[in-house]
């Protein structure tokens, strides 16, 4: 009996203990490890961010309530072209620093000086983060399934920590939204959402998304 029980939930010892703020004591270290938003100070765990305190298996972490987008490799992001040279585009992905998109990772080769005829300044692209350096500069790529220049629909911006709400548990909220509105919806990791479809569908989805955002205001943040 006990064996089947443990098979249902292997190591699921997750504990939520409410919201903590920087400087809060999170207990003794013992055999535990510090996760995100946690530092070891004077032999004890200390929260360094405002967020939800979680203990999962051996890892003590603080999941931030609000944070700016920081790119990580393989993130799907929507970016706007801010500038370009002969063989590089500079892409605003909502992070502290612009990402670069080299011609070799772009959608197609251009003649020398023809970068703007492939993707022009101000246009939106769906791309993937290729690598992030220690100095926070990053490289994005458009080589991959579904990565493209965005030519139709609209792009909506949400704070990145709220995208979980749009996806919902197991992606349910998003799939319901997609089937109800008959729109193509791409939720990128930097909080930008591409909605494509017919006009009533787009405006409907947009309304729902903005409502989700406003629910947050005045509450936790």
């Amino acid at each position, binding site marked *: 009996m006990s064996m089947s029980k443990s098979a249902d939930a292997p190591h699921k010892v997750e504990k939520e203990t409410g919201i903590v*703020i920087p400087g809060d004591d999170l207990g003794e270290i013992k055999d535990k490890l510090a996760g995100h938003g946690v530092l070891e100070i004077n032999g004890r765990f*200390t929260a360094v961010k405002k967020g939800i305190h979680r203990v999962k298996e051996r890892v003590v972490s603080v999941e931030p309530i609000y944070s*700016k987008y920081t790119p990580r490799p393989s993130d799907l992001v929507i970016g706007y072209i801010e500038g370009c040279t002969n063989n590089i585009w500079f892409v605003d992905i909502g992070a502290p620093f612009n990402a670069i998109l080299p011609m070799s990772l772009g959608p197609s080769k251009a003649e020398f000086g023809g970068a703007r005829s492939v993707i022009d300044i101000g246009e939106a692209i769906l791309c993937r983060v290729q690598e992030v350096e*220690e100095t926070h500069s990053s490289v994005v790529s458009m080589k991959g399934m579904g990565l493209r220049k965005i030519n139709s629909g609209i792009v909506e911006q949400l704070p990145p920590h709220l995208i979980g709400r749009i996806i919902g548990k197991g992606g349910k909220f998003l799939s319901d939204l997609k089937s109800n509105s008959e729109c193509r919806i791409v939720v990128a990791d930097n909080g930008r959402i591409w909605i494509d479809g017919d006009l009533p569908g787009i405006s409907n989805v947009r309304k729902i998304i903005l409502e989700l955002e406003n629910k947050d205001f005045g509450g936790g943040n």
Partner: protein
Amino acid sequence: MGGYGDVQMIDENGKRMDGRGPADLREISIETGVVPVADGSCRMIWGTNEAIVSVYGPMEAHPRKIQRQDSAVLAVEYNMAPFSTTDRMRPGFNRRSKEISKVTKDALESVVLLELYPRSKIQVNIEIISAEAGTRCVGLTAASVALADAGIPMTDLVVSVASGKINDIVVCDLNKEEDNYGEADLPMGILPNTGELVFLQMDGNLSQEEFKQAWDYNMNAASEVHSIMKKALTGGDSQ
């Protein structure tokens, strides 16, 4: 300071002009998320002081020459609104605001984990809407709340309180009259969880015993203010 020695600001029962005892703080309330476009923000009302702090960033530091390759730069701007005082203040920077911006920056730099954001900048704007006395303390305390609200990693919050001397008696949290006609003022920036000091100034003279008394008042007040900050940040009602 001083020169008005005969102003009676505390009566024989230890009651001050606004009815507080020597160790009492003025009323404090904190509200976060008051500036929707900012990454983090906070409004702090402390007596009749009011400060609004907004935090932007981390973002790319401009111009490039101010970037540091190993850490972020913290840009703190303290400003008093022209209408914040009884006499209209000339708007813009002056020596006083420059000094307070600098000491606030130095205090915050010791808690914010700047090394996590190389080449970036974190902008902290402190705007004093209404000034009574101790605006540097309000500004610093509110700035640490706004930074925490913006999700910036920091090892602790900073609580700043001032104690001073009026009519040869040490009291906590001076108001305007006590600040103007009192003999000394001791603002301190305290890390509430460890009791460490990140900011200390003294205006006027205090004897060793008086200094110790003022220190104790500030330390006790710090934990009181910290619980209000915590309530404001964790979503409970401020107050």
